[in-house]
């Protein structure tokens, strides 16, 4: 079964606005990662947050992690048309090398 579930499934915003997507998971994790996938391509790693961290920044990306609620959020600030893609969270399950991906959020940024 899917470990991660993202919401919303799809999001459409104007260029310059912020985009927020959320991820929930079910079991203990070592870390949580966010990936981007441009249409029909492989995934590209964006940012990783470890289970003992609460917030992390990278450029226009801000990730939060709440292990008590088993949830994470990805914020993209000042979005650009080039941010149009699908975004996936992935969790590394404690004690394994196994990653579980969510179902993804499709983001469309309108110019």
């Amino acid at each position, binding site marked *: 079964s899917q470990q991660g579930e993202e919401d919303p499934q799809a999001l459409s915003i104007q260029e310059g606005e912020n985009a927020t997507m959320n991820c929930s998971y079910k079991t203990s994790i070592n870390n949580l990662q966010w990936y981007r996938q441009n249409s*029909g391509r*492989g*995934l590209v790693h964006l940012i990783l947050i470890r289970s003992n961290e609460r917030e992390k920044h990278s450029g226009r990306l801000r990730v939060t992690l709440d292990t008590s609620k088993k949830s994470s959020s990805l914020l993209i600030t000042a979005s650009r048309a080039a941010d149009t893609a699908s975004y996936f969270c992935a969790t590394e399950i404690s004690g394994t090398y*196994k990653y579980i*991906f969510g179902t993804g959020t499709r983001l469309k940024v309108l110019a």
Partner: protein
Amino acid sequence: DVKVTQSSRYLVKRTGEKVFLECVQDMDHENMFWYRQDPGLGLRLIYFSYDVKMKEKGDIPEGYSVSREKKERFSLILESASTNQTSMYLCASSPHRGPTYEQYFGPGTRLTVT
């Protein structure tokens, strides 16, 4: 730059054929993974390998097998292809442990079984 390559971008096979999907990585990573991606279902793990000749089942191993004879190469085998195996197949690799645990993905193979 880490590079993960997959043998084909597009593949069309007939029902019942044996299909081999090859994945090669050049970063000496211990872990390698095969996922399939279907609309609305995200990525689902088929098999992964954390060392040469080692393999672990993922969430949907039925109808698939894998082979890892060399560290850099991880093959996915569809023993007898069926139409419900039409999908995008993504290979990935990652180090056992490092500064980050990110996975590096190949470009994907879009397989159609007719």
